[in-house]
């Protein structure tokens, strides 16, 4: 990993103020990494972001982007090589969506064919319909505008993208969808992304590393979300990431990442005696019925009364399953809402994988 963006003792002081907006900030951001700048208001997170593309001029230190000191570059040329997304999207109201997306390609004088091909590509990436291209921004929904804003920032394929509260202006449902899409797109494109958010959960969800800033641009911790949640560097970080640290960490761990238990299993053709033995061995009071790897459902111990085989007791389907791609937080939700008090893990085609118990998950919380 090489550093794509290095902030070296960066400082921003405004004339006539006693304290620096950003004091002495050093931060190295790797190529292809998504970094969240988080912190309370006044922590200088937006100032820091805007110093990278020189919308705000640092008063001290160096910012090196891809090997070059940005302060030695022409700011206009510099900005054309960096994607920039802001909260209110900043789409040009008098330009169509097509013209908006083509802004930077036009500034750097791409020919029309290349720009048109790139727009088609971006429509596909961002799941936008071509009919939108000839509309004006006011004719789009908030979620569409936000996606166009990000597509526009990526139009000239810059290696680095800066985002200032990119998803804060849309409602929570749209925001969650945009965040998921952002993760998918970033997995494909591998850009170096720095984004500012005031929302800890957003930082945890989207970033590879989060930089937690205190008032005056003091870096309190710079680490992957998992580490921040497990080992907060100090009381400030602990307080900032807030309550439910354990639950937030569970959201970061996939079911497939941990070892799961086999759980009590019988075949539909098994005898009731065999099934009762399996139930008692596991101590759950019920047993999963699995036919050649495929999960059919579950049967309570009491339901075997008067039957000879498991099939006769008619297995009931589980009310919820989790897959190996789901998070432990989702598994926990499944546990507390199901009658069986465990999360049943399946893979594609209802293939039975095992079970997750509350004890197993709490081991991850305290780990």
């Amino acid at each position, binding site marked *: 990993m090489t550093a794509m963006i290095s902030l070296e003792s960066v400082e921003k002081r405004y004339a006539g103020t006693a304290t620096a907006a950003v004091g002495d900030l050093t931060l190295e951001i790797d190529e292809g990494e998504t970094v969240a700048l988080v912190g309370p208001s006044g922590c200088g997170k937006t100032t820091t972001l805007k110093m990278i593309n020189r*919308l705000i001029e640092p008063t001290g230190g160096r910012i090196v982007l891809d090997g070059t000191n940005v302060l030695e570059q022409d700011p206009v040329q510099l*900005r054309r090589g960096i994607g*920039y997304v*802001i909260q209110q999207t*900043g789409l040009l109201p008098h330009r169509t969506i097509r013209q908006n997306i083509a802004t*930077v390609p036009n500034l750097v004088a791409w020919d029309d064919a290349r720009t048109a091909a790139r727009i088609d590509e971006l429509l596909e990436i961002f799941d936008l319909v071509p009919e939108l291209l000839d509309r*004006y921004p006011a004719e*789009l929904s908030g979620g569409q505008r936000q996606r166009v804003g990000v597509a526009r920032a990526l139009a000239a394929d810059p290696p680095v993208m800066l985002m200032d509260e990119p998803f804060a202006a849309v409602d929570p449902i749209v925001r969650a*969808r945009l965040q998921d899409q952002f993760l998918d797109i970033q997995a494909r494109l591998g850009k170096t992304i720095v984004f500012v958010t005031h929302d800890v959960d957003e930082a945890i969800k989207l970033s590879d590393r989060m930089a937690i800033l205190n008032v005056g641009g003091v870096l309190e911790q710079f680490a992957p979300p998992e580490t921040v949640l497990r080992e907060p560097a100090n009381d400030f970080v602990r307080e900032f990431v807030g309550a439910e640290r354990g639950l937030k960490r569970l959201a970061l761990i996939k079911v497939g990442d941990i070892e799961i238990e086999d759980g009590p299993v019988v075949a539909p053709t098994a005898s009731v005696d065999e099934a009762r033995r399996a139930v008692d061995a596991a101590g759950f009071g019920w047993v999963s019925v699995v036919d050649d790897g495929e999960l059919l459902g579950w049967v309570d111990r009491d339901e075997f009364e008067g039957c000879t085989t498991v099939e006769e007791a008619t297995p009931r389907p589980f009310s919820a399953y989790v897959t190996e791609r789901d998070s432990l937080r989702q598994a926990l939700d499944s546990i507390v809402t199901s009658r069986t008090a465990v999360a049943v893990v399946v893979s594609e085609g209802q293939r039975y994988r095992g079970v997750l118990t509350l004890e197993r998950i709490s081991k991850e919380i305290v780990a």
Partner: protein
Amino acid sequence: MMRWAGALVAQFEGEPVIRWQWIADHLDEVWARGVQHVVLTSSSVAIGLAIAFPLAVVASRRRWTIAPITWVSGILYTIPSFAFIFLLLPVTGLSLRTVVIPLIAYSILILFRNTLAGLDAVEADVKEAAVGMGLSARQLLWRVEVPLAMPVIIAGVRIATVSAISLVTIAALIGRGGFGQFILEGINEFFPTPLLLGVVLSVALAVLADLLLLGLQRLVTPWAAGAGLRTVAV
């Protein structure tokens, strides 16, 4: 004044309100004065805009200049128009400049204020995103701020044009008043036909100019027309 008014009423007695034949005989003059009216109005508004626009751009960037510019253009605006013309006579004589200079002076305040209001109304996030994408200061002005300020700037041009059309008539006092010549003729000769003709033609010209500028405003802001009408789900 009162004596004149009384005499006017007396003189007009028995005279028909409009002598159509007189108008038919003077169509050449109607055309020539119309051209003069349009030229005086459009050149003074155009020059006024050429002065007010850069002032507004400077004012939008250096806020401290707003007060002095408004103060000076406000003083120009308050000089009584026909006094202005007579004050200029010794300097510029009976030339068109004597008419155009006061008209320019009156238009500057309106055009300056509207252009500045238009530039100021461009949303900060739009400007920030534009600069963030790498538009230069010049590109920001011409590609973002001016197009977005256009409705308000044209609204200012409409007001300035309509008031200039009305003010041009005063210049009949030095023989360069466009349709105002007819008005003055009617007054001097106690003859209602040219008086009414002059009034009707200037009002008609003002209405026409206003409609044309409104059309222009719609034409240059297609993005404002459909706003909010077509929205599709995410």
